[in-house]
């Protein structure tokens, strides 16, 4: 049923229809609206589940681990610092092969503390052994959660559904909310691969030494490879059940004849597509490749998606690996080594900085001469001033505060 609805609400309704048995969360902006909605449903008894208000994200993931190991479908949501705080448990859940589904309302990581959107948080857990799916729209965020439970439980691996904080979580958009019957038909009862059962006791979480650890890790890698087949299959199954094409590995847009392909993830894709349309109107051969599944990294699908004419790949990154550069870029490069391509990274939208068509247009018009690494809309004068300060005096003070002083205003400016 079509609704004009806030992204968090849409996701909450989707999650509820997946019938999780245990939901736990610790409040952190911008994930709160999702769990608030779920909590209300549990309280009103419209959702039969245990809702635990835990004392930290570390506990939230730990509760999910226990619940999942005991055979219950478990869900939690977090963001930013919260994801880092639960990091140890995040890796543990993957190691134990527990099909937990978690929403990450993507947000920057401090210091300086920043509540706005970027992908630094999810990127920090890139290698935790979780699947990472990125939503372009609220509709897709909703759909990906339903698919996530299906994928997670089929493979017995946890899945992270990443949606841009505020940009999606707090945005009211049109969304098609499926019916419970549809979801039930698509998502079978949770059949755990391993379960804590006094009737059939086992020890889960044993210590593994050098004699088998490599093998255990290999199997984690192997499960990720299987995921590359499962995810497209689930996309097809979902389309059949819901009449909508959502999820999958990658989303090419006008790449067939494109000489330049912009690679990006999440809500920025819409803005990029609009920009691309404008550029094409001026005859620029440019396309877009959206990555829906970042973990496992769909190298084959990406190669397949790139047009034969592609000469230049611009990776639009909502995160930064200091000392290295683009994080997604590294994977792209690794998967395109055999090809003769120019790959450049554009770091954009950090900590809530708006990514506007205007800026993108200016950037992509001269895509072919982009340097390896560009910071979109970087205020160079601010940076230079601070660099000067630092070279002038040892005790130059806190950079963030210095810059804000120079800027003369705080947040809430347009964009």
């Amino acid at each position, binding site marked *: 049923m079509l609704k004009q609805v806030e992204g968090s609400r849409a996701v909450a309704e989707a999650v509820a229809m997946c019938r999780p048995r245990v939901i736990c969360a610790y409040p952190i902006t911008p994930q709160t609206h999702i769990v608030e909605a779920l909590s209300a449903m549990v309280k009103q008894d419209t959702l039969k589940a245990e809702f635990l208000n835990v004392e930290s994200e570390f506990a939230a993931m730990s509760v999910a681990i226990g619940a999942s190991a005991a055979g219950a479908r478990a869900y939690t949501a977090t963001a930013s610092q919260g994801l880092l705080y639960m990091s140890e448990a995040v890796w543990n859940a993957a190691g134990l*092969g527990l099909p937990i589904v978690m929403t990450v309302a993507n947000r920057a990581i401090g210091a300086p503390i920043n509540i706005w959107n970027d992908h630094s948080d999810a990127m920090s857990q890139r290698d935790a052994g979780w699947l990472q799916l990125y939503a372009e729209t609220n509709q897709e965020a909703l759909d990906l959660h339903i698919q996530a439970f299906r994928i997670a439980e089929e493979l017995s691996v946890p899945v992270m559904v990443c949606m841009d904080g505020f940009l999606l979580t707090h945005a009211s958009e049109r969304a098609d909310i499926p019916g419970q019957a549809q979801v039930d038909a698509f998502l079978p009862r949770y059949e755990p691969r*391993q379960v804590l059962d006094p009737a059939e006791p*086992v020890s889960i*979480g044993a210590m*593994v030494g050098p004699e088998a650890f490599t093998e255990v890790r290999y199997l984690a890698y192997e499960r990720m490879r299987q995921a590359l087949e499962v995810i497209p299959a689930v996309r097809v199954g979902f389309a059949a059940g819901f009449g909508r094409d959502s999820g999958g590995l990658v989303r090419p847009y006008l790449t067939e004849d494109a000489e330049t392909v912009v690679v990006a993830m999440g809500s920025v894709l819409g803005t990029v597509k609009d920009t691309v349309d404008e550029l094409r109107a001026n005859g620029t051969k440019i396309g877009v490749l959206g990555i829906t599944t970042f973990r496992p990294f769909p190298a084959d699908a990406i190669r397949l998606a790139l047009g034969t004419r592609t000469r230049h790949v611009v990776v639009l990154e909502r995160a930064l690996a200091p000392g290295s550069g683009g994080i997604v870029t590294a994977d792209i490069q690794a998967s395109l080594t055999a090809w003769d391509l120019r790959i450049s990274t554009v770091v954009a939208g950090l900590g809530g900085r708006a990514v506007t068509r205007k800026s993108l247009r200016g950037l992509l018009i001269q895509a072919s001469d982009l340097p390896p690494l560009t910071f979109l809309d970087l205020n160079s004068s601010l940076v230079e001033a601070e660099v000067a300060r630092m070279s002038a005096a040892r005790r130059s003070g806190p950079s963030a505060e210095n810059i804000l002083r120079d800027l003369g205003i705080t947040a809430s400016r347009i964009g």
Partner: protein
Amino acid sequence: MDKPFAITLDVGSSRANHTGAWRTERPVYVNHLPPCNNACPAGENIQQWLYDAEEGSYEAAWRQIMQDNPFPAVMGRVCYRPCETACNRAQLDSAVGINSVERFLGDEALRQGWQVPVDAAPTNEGGRGGGRGVLVVGAGPSGLSAAYHLTRLGHAVTVKDAGAAPGGMMRYGIPKYRLPRDILDAEVDRIRRMGVTLELNTKVTDIQAELDAGFDAAFVAVGAHIGRRAYIPAGDSARIMDAVSMLHSMEDGASPMLGRRVAVYGGGNTAMDAARTARRLGASEAVVVYRRTREKMPAHDIEVEEALEEGVTMRWLSTVAQAGEGTLVIEKMKLDETGFPQPTGEFEELEADCLVLALGQNADLSVLQDVPGVTFSDNVVEVGPDLMTGHPGIFAGGDMVPSERTVTVAIGHGKKAARSIDAWLRDPGGRPPQTPPRGVGTGSPAAYKHAPASFGALNTWYYSDAPATVRPRLETARRIGTFDEVTGGLDESTALFEARRCMSCGNCFGCDNCYGVCPDNAIIKLGDGTYEIDYDYCKGCGLCVAECPCGAIEMEPEPT
């Protein structure tokens, strides 16, 4: 379920890992000789019968006593309890009231009329059942004990005694208030009912003749009934008698004329008996005159205490120098460095209507006097470790052989003599038998050779604090003037309490501590109250040894 590789494991799989390999020392179950058993002159397996009594199996407990001693009810009254002196529990709170439990069991047996079956039919014809005819001279504790054991061993026993009633010193030496006669009679009667022939008023004079008359062996235990005399200058009118005959006369129904003030000369148990009897016969003063100090006094403490309670007074470091009518002359003594009393030359007078001499007894050895091979030394018969005299086939025991003169010792002699006689009858050339294994538990007989169980080897924390129960005693007012039994018995609950205070020193009593405290589940519980160590998993930590309450586990080096 099909489990993920490595991180999920099947239960209990670590049993494949035999940690026994870590061990350098291994625990083993042992059995030590309990101090009580070790101390018992009658060789009772006290720990075992306490164990039976603990769970209320009184008959089993009683039968266990009867293995070694046919007089539990008597023992429970007159024994001087070397077992309790030795009891380890004395070092914790107070000794287990073994004697009172024994008395309870003995009395219970009489109440219930339990009898002792005779294993082999008695016969005096050679060969059949190995039974022979054995003569026992003297129906005292030693003789009756021997008769009892010989009968159980399948021999036909005839007991001959000069007295009118059986029991010897138990009857003629121990006053009624310590040993009621119905008890004695009942226990003697039980022996008689086993088929022992008892011929009273029959003084044996020629032992050789008896043997020729068809007895295959003889056990002589006529005791020591002759009161020792000492030379005391005395006026004609002085009334002097000896304690033995005085106490004896009590049994003949003719109570002696003692007068109001009675002096008893001597410091043994007999002296106490005499003084206490005097009080009961109406003497307002009963004074015990003794050459040395109380510490040196041979009489047992209980006897002395009870005597004092009953108003008997004591004159330490005193000898009777002269006896006249109504008065005695007492000389003060002092102990020299060797602890021997020396005269001081100081004299004083003591008012006394009568002087009772309790200076010890001598045995009437006439019955063995002219038997070839039999030898004597200072008024007793010389015997070997098997109690056989110099004359093959003639054994002797009790007060007439060198040993402490107590009923319990005598009963022990009876058992020992019976076994020796049985062995001798089967193989006259054979060597005296070994003392048989004692104690309960799981060890091999060899284990019994271990030293007696020491208090140090116990872990007493596991025993709840339970001070001894005091036996009810007749209040002194009622003691004087009556011959009612002074010390009462325990009822069942208190007897059970006492039995359960036993710590089972040196022998496993199945408390499950080892089974419980092993961090490696390496103790196998066999179910019959015994255990086995699973050396596949035992790491040799020694916890079971440290936590065994009764010291029945020990570490020994791993065999290399």
